[in-house]
């Protein structure tokens, strides 16, 4: 399954991809575009990526997690293009025989994704104004 997608993420379908009769636990993380008070009047976010590297980095992250938690099965999707408020931008599912592994592997993937996968977002505000939104994964962003 491709990790970078331009159509809406189907979380149920992603979860089904890692469910099987020997996996009793699954943890799903979904990140979505929010319109929080501190975010200002965000209508949507446009996601872009260094696609070849992002796919490769996601594959490396999944492979690291699978090495660390061999019983876990993982699925991850990140959306590109314009994503409206309320829609999912990213989803990670970890299926495992036991819940501790499911939680840990799911958390690992989303944390590493945020740190390492080259994806960027531009906020589209009410009125059509656009601005890059950089969370400061890089030291530069903190200056």
């Amino acid at each position, binding site marked *: 399954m491709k990790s970078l997608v331009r159509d809406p993420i189907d979380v149920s379908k992603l979860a089904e991809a890692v469910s099987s009769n020997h996996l009793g636990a699954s943890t799903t993380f979904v990140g979505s575009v929010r319109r929080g008070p501190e975010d200002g009047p965000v209508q949507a976010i446009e996601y*872009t990526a260094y696609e070849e590297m992002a796919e490769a980095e996601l594959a490396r992250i999944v492979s690291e997690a699978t090495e660390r938690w061999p019983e876990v099965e993982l699925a991850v999707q990140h959306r590109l293009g314009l994503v409206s408020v309320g829609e999912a931008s990213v989803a990670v599912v970890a299926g495992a025989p036991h819940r501790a592994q499911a939680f840990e592997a799911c958390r690992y993937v989303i944390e590493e994704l*945020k740190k390492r996968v*080259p994806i960027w977002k531009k906020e589209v505000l009410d009125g059509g104004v656009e601005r890059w939104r950089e969370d400061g994964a890089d030291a530069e962003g903190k200056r």
Partner: protein
Amino acid sequence: MHAPYETAGMADAHITVTCRLFARYAETVGLEECELELPVGATVREAVASLRRVVPNGSSIPEQPLVALNKQQVLPDHVLLDGDQLGLLPPLAGG
């Protein structure tokens, strides 16, 4: 795609690397990709310095941006080889 920017000075001892720019960097510089000629033994840091000099509005790119070499993040002291592909990455914001 621009023709290589020659910055090495000596035509007989240089390498050519491709440099891709993304998101805000691509926007402020007005370029998504260029080639750089660099002296043999040049590091990532030197490639970035060269890029900042030769592309339009290059100083808008920080002196130490995140850099990917052949699809993996790399440190500034890494020595480049002919044909390497660099990516200049604004602060990541996935998720």
